[in-house]
Each structure stands twice: as C-alpha cells, then as structure tokens.
C-alpha cells in the first residue's frame, strides 16, 4: 500500500514535471526547419513546426540546419541569396554557405547587339534562347562598361550566298561568321561591310528597301525593315525612296528629330517609345509610331515625365499624422499613374526631391522611407532627439525657452511630478519631451493603444497655502494648475497627441475629435469640459467627415466619397478599410476612458 502511494506520488510528480516542461517548451520560440504552412526556417511556436523536419528551441541564427547561403540554379545560371540549405536541396539546387561562389561570378555577356551583366551559365542560356552564340567576358567588372562594349561593336552588312542567291544579314561583325549563318551555299565567301545596310546598291544583294517598319528589342525608335527582314535606319517618311538613306547607317543623333507620324526617332528617356499604332494614330508608312509615355493631368493636376515619382499626402502636407492617414508614392510610367502606398500606420513616410536637368527642366523623384520614431520617447537630450541620422523625432520644449506657453514656470516645479511631460525638474535631462516627428498609428485591434497612450500620462501635486483672511495661494508646482494655467494643459495635450493616435486629434478626413484624454483635479474630472479655446467641439464638428469603419457594421456614420483621391481601386479600398478601423478604435478608446 505504501509502495503504491509512493508510486502514485512519483507518477503525479512526473506527469506534472513533463506537462510543465511541455508547456514551457510550447511557449518558447522555436526554430522550425519547415513550418506546417510550408515556410522554411522561421522562428515560431513549436506547435507550428512540421514534425517531419528539424526543430530546436533556439533562434534560427544559432542552428546549423537553418544556415543561410547561396542556392545556384545550374539550369538558369541564377544565384539566389539567403536560402536555407533544405529549401535549396528540395528544389534540386546547389547550395553553398560561401557568399560569393565562383559560379555566381558576374561578367559581361554580349549577345548580338545586346549586353547583360550576368553569370556564365546565364549568358549561355540567354544566347541559346535567341539562337546565338554566347560571348562571355569575365574580366569586365561593372554593368556600365559591359553596355559600353556592346555599343562599341561594329555593325554592318554581312553578305553571303545562300541557296545560290547573294543575300545579306545585318548585325555585328562577330555574328558575320560562316558557322553562324543559315543555309550557306558550299564554299561561299562571307564578307562584312562595316556601317553598310543590306539594301546598299553596291552590295548587290537580294535585299530591297520597303515601306515596312518595326520595333527593335533594346532600341527606342521605329526602324525601317528591308525585304530580307533586316533592320535599316530609323523610320523617316521623307526618306522612303532615298537611296542614300538605304545605303549606310545613319546615327540616331542625325536622324529626323520629331516623333510625329512621319518620324520614328523615339527617345525613351525623353518620354516616347516605339509601339504599335492604334486606330487614328496611323503613321504615313508602316504600323508603328513613337508613343508618348509621359503622364498628363495626374491626380494632383500636374504633368509628369515617364519615370518621375512624387508624394501624395492625405492632407497635402508632408507631416500629416492624423489618425488613419497614410503617405503614397505616385509613379508615372508608360503614360500610366501608378500608386504605391507607403507602410501603413505611418511606419513609412514619403519624401521627394527633384533633379535639375541640363535643359533646366526638373525631374521629380520620391520614395517611402522608414519612420524611425520608436526610440523618441527615451531621448532625454535635445541634441540626441534631433539627430536625424538616427531617428525622426521632434523636441517639444518645456521651460524657459518654451515660448509663451509655459515660459517661466519650470523653475517653480520641484518634486511630486511623474510622467514624461512634466519631468522638467530632472537635471539629467533637457527640459522638454522628445516625441515622434510624425506620430505612428497604434495597434488599435488588440486593445493595446490605450496603454501605449498612457506612456505620457502625468501626475502632479500642487501645493497651496491658505491665508488667514485671503483664499488659498499656490506655492509649489503652480505650473500644473491647469485651471489657472490652461496653456500647460495645451502643452500636455500636444505631447499626448504627438506620440501616436492619442488624445484630441483629427482623422485623415479632417474630422476633429476632442476626446481621448482627461484631466483630473482632486478626483474631479475636468477633461473636455475645460475651456481650452481651440477645442470647441461645436466648431470641430464643422470640419471634415468621419471615416467609415469597415470592420464594425454597427457604426453607421455616413461616409462621403467626395474627397477620395485619384488612385487605383485596389489601393483605395485597402486604405479606406484600414484608416476607418483606426478612427473607430480611437473613438472607442476615448469613450472607454471617459465612461
């Protein structure tokens, strides 16, 4: 009986030990060689690991089985980076931990008139697809030199005899080789005539001039083609029967200069490219024209050149951090305005600048950059706060130099104060608060936004002396008496709304909500009822519209689409649903706080 009891106790102990061990193991992040949903080498919960693969309760960086390397595709000649060994092997690739394996060395690949800076195997693959021989030059160290080599090649007419007919093929000197030409008559002589076209009369070939045109891969312009299918000079309707124009190569710079229906000298960088003509755009000869690929009358009513990009802000200003607002990058490409949203919740913001060209015209370039706001609140020195190389923060001063808001009161503040805003008595920090320059959106969906807004909640003990005859007189921390000094409340609210979607704030539609904060004096809430001048809710209601909260069908406020912007349908839908949710949650949080 005693043994049985001991056994039972031991069993219970073991069960408890193992179960607690298992639970602990479940909670620890595990490196799964493969997860159940098929992702390789992820740090996730053990429960998500595929049991057929390796796993260990550590970071993937510390495991050998999830070491990352280069996976070489011997068929395509491509090298893929940051690939786990298993992922590469399962795809039949060759994996190596070496960051620069020799098979991934780049060189200059010349294929016909074109060039590519790529691997040897890739070069062979490309050449094979075009039915040409690969000319790989491993000594070339950069792409620009490679393109230069391709452009410097001799071009001309390659004359030979095929099926007892004297014919011609236009191309490079290296292509003009007995081994590379089709259906050659035995013992025929192959001759290369540099800078000549196949239609040159003195070459006496069967290739004749035509009125047909075509687009050439890698070239901007519209080109004439001869009866043998060879490229001739740039299309110029006035030169259709000009023998001289069909004899030798005319450089692009000396060809016709307009891009009308009579000339095919397109310029990709200038905003035109060869394309098949549509109805109503027919050129004088052939079926191809120079298509204008610039953008006109875009969403901001301006015209942009092909390749230009610019920023779009919900309120037209670059530092928009209203609830639900987002930045967008607009791109003009091939005559189309493409919209790229920056990271939501102001995780990124858009910046733009322009480059002045030789012709005096500017070329606008924009990009989404990461909003480095996350360590603003812990900066105690102004100089660190404003170090734009490290972070995107702004400094809100509190003290003598804080302007007319709180000037002269900081000296009175001594002790009994807690919180970021009023930490002015701390000699180890500058007098003020470091907050994000563009406040981030908060995770409204998991209810954490309220606690995050609490980061700047502050409390202050104000001491009064009561005179024998007169009323009470403030003697300590008078700065905090917001009834006497409402500007201090404004300062506090400024900091509060600068750290995120907190405090009184407008949404991206311009609707101002004077909620999301409270002031408590001796347990009495004075919050939004306090007359702070600008926060008159009646006035605020006249501005903007509420955003529609998509996720909450019970929220029935109207949504007006008049302010919607001219961006693509998909981006628009995404943006609205997201921003609507943020607004809803902020309002919900505000109500929660005040109820």
């Amino acid at each position, binding site marked *: 009986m005693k043994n049985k009891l001991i056994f039972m106790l031991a069993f219970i102990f073991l069960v408890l030990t193992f179960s607690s061990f298992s639970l602990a193991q479940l909670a620890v992040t595990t490196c799964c060689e493969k*997860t159940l*949903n*098929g*992702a*390789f*080498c*992820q*740090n*996730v919960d053990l429960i998500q690991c595929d049991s057929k693969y390796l796993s260990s309760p550590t970071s993937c960086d510390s495991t050998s089985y999830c070491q*990352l390397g280069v*996976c070489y*595709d011997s*068929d*395509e000649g491509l090298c*893929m*980076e*940051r*690939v*786990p060994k298993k*992922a*590469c092997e399962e*795809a*039949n*690739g060759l994996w190596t931990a070496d960051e620069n394996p020799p098979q991934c060395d780049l060189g200059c690949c010349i294929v016909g008139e074109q060039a590519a800076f790529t691997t040897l195997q890739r070069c062979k693959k490309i050449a094979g*697809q*075009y039915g040409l021989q690969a000319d790989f030059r491993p000594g070339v160290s950069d792409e620009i030199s490679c393109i230069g080599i391709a452009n410097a090649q001799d071009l001309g007419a390659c004359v030979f005899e095929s099926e007892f007919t004297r014919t011609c093929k236009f191309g490079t000197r290296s292509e003009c080789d007995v081994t590379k030409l089709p259906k050659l008559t035995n013992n025929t002589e192959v001759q290369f005539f540099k800078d000549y076209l196949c239609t040159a009369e003195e070459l006496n070939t069967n290739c004749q001039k035509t009125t047909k045109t075509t687009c050439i891969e890698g070239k901007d312009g519209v080109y004439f083609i001869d009866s043998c299918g060879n490229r001739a000079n740039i299309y110029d309707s006035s030169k259709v029967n000009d023998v001289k124009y069909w004899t030798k190569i005319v450089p692009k710079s000396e060809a016709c200069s307009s891009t009308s229906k009579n000339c095919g000298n397109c310029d990709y960088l200038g905003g035109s*490219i060869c394309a098949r003509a549509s109805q109503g755009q027919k050129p004088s000869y052939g079926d191809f024209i120079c298509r204008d690929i610039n953008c006109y009358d875009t969403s901001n009513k301006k015209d942009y050149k092909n*390749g230009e*990009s610019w920023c779009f802000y919900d309120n037209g200003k670059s530092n928009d951090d209203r609830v639900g607002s987002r930045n967008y990058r607009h*791109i003009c*490409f*091939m005559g*189309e305005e*493409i919209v*790229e*949203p*920056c*990271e*939501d*919740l102001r*995780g*990124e913001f858009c910046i733009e600048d322009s480059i002045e060209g030789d012709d005096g015209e500017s070329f606008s370039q924009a*990009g*989404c950059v990461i909003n480095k706001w*996350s360590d603003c*609140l812990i900066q105690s020195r102004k100089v660190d706060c404003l170090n734009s190389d490290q972070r995107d923060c702004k400094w809100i001063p509190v003290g003598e130099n804080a302007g007319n808001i709180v000037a002269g009161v900081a000296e009175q503040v001594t002790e009994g104060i807690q919180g970021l805003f009023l930490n002015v008595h701390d000699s180890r920090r500058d007098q003020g608060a470091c907050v994000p320059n563009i406040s*981030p*959106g*908060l*995770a409204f969906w998991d209810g*954490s936004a309220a*606690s*995050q807004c609490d*980061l700047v909640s502050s409390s202050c003990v104000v001491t009064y002396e009561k005179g024998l005859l007169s009323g009470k007189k403030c003697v300590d921390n008078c700065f905090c008496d917001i009834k006497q000094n409402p500007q201090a409340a404004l300062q506090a609210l400024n900091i509060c709304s600068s750290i*995120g979607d907190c405090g009184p704030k407008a949404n991206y539609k311009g609707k101002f909500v004077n909620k999301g904060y409270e002031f408590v004096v001796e347990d009495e809430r004075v919050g939004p009822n306090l007359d702070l001048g600008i926060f008159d809710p009646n006035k605020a209601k006249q501005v903007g519209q509420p955003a529609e909260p998509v996720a909450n069908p019970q929220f029935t406020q109207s949504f007006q689409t008049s302010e919607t912007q001219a961006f*693509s349908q*998909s*981006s628009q839908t*995404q943006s609205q649903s*997201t921003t609507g949710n943020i607004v809803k949650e902020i309002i919900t949080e505000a109500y929660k706080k005040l109820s």
Partner: protein
Amino acid sequence: MINKKRAQVTLFIIIAVVIIGAAILFFAFTDIGREIISPIVPSGIGTGLNVEKDFEKCVLDDEMFNKEIAAILKQGGDNNPEHFFLYNDTKYKYLCYSANYYEACINQEPLLIQSVEAEILDAVKPILAKCIQKIEKNLMDRGFEIRSDDFNSEVDIITGNINIKILYNLRIKKGDVSKVFESFEIKKKSEAYQLITVASSIINFEAHYGDSDSVAYMSIYPNTRVEKLKQDDGTTVYRLSDRVTKEEFNFATRSYALPPGYLL
C-alpha cells in the same frame, strides 16, 4: 485544217499532262502540298503534320488549359499555395518570408522557374490526357489502327513561350502504310519567363535589402508593369504584369516588417 486541229488537241493534252504531273509532284513531295491535301485524304499518312496540329489545337483551345496556367501565375507560381497572403480573394504565395520583425526575409522558392514549370505540368496533365484520348478516337473513327504507350510530359518556360513536350509513342496504321510519332510539342505564347525572372530578382533584393524599387525594374523592363502594395502586417504584395499580353505574376514577401505601436 484537220491536222492543225489535231496538233492543237495534242498540244492541249501535253499541257494538261504536264500540269497534272506538276500538281501530283507538288502535292506528293512538298510540305505545303502535303499539308493542303492531308485533311481531305483520309488514308494519307502524310497526315502526320495534321495529327500534331490537331493535338496542339486541342490543348491550346482548351479553356481550362489557359485558365490553369493563368491561375498558377497569379498565385506566385503555385496551383494551391499553403503559405500565402490573401489579397482581393487571390492567394499571393510568399516567395520570401520572415515571421519576425526587423529581419530580412528568407528566400522560400530559390528555383522559381523550375517550381512554376512543375506546377504547370501537374495542372495540365489531365488536359493533355483528354486531348490524347480525343486524337486517338478521331483517328480510330477514320479507320486507323492505333498502338500507343502511356505518355510523359515536360514543361519548359522560355523567353516568349511556355513549351510543353509530350513524350508519347503513337503508332498509326491504315492498310499498308504506317506512321510512328514519338513526341509532340506545344508552344503557348507567354511572357511568363520575363515575369518570373523579374520576380526572382525582386526576391533577391528583398532578401538582401528588405525592399525593392519598382521604378528601377520598370525602367529596365519597360514592358513589365510592377505594382507594389504594402500591407498592414508588413507583407508586400507584388503584382507583375506584361503590358502587351496582360499576363500577371503575383506574389508576396515579408521582409524587415515593422511592428505597430510601442511593443509594450
């Protein structure tokens, strides 16, 4: 007078014989001639070209064939992706992914072209089988004896085309004449190769730097449209399309994702 008429008739007969002879030679010994008569001569084992064309037509005209390929390309090269981001009811397969914040993504599909080829092969096999059955039935209806083995197939995505090679040993016989086919090749015009190559390059960039510039890709490949849409959870949805054929290749990445809020 009679002699003159006889001479004329003789001349006409000679000319007719020459024309008929030339026509016979043309239809019997030239590819074009054989092609012209093959549909109307049932016994013509010169119908080899026709069997191949019929088979190609059967596959390329099949609505499901084109739909399956388009669906695979729209889902990151996977017919039924397991690890994906759902966007506008389409599954965007993660081709580069990190579950963690502030971490570059890990390449999930290093040999993308081969992977897409394998997916297309799986998807089109039933269609190929259906077309083989149809061709065999058609030949039998026309009086041919048929002997065939099981077929094997392979897909090759190259510049401008998706090539499908069907290794299928088909022997047809009618009367004394017989013909053996060892393989068939179907070429579907497609810019999938270009789109997948650009996708591979974007993945390499994302794995290295955490982001990519769509303008740079579009400048190098003017016919390829690159749309980049960042999502709330750190996912980036890429929609690549060919401006001429309107084909789409879509995929998702998650690289250097940023956490929302203060991570308390």
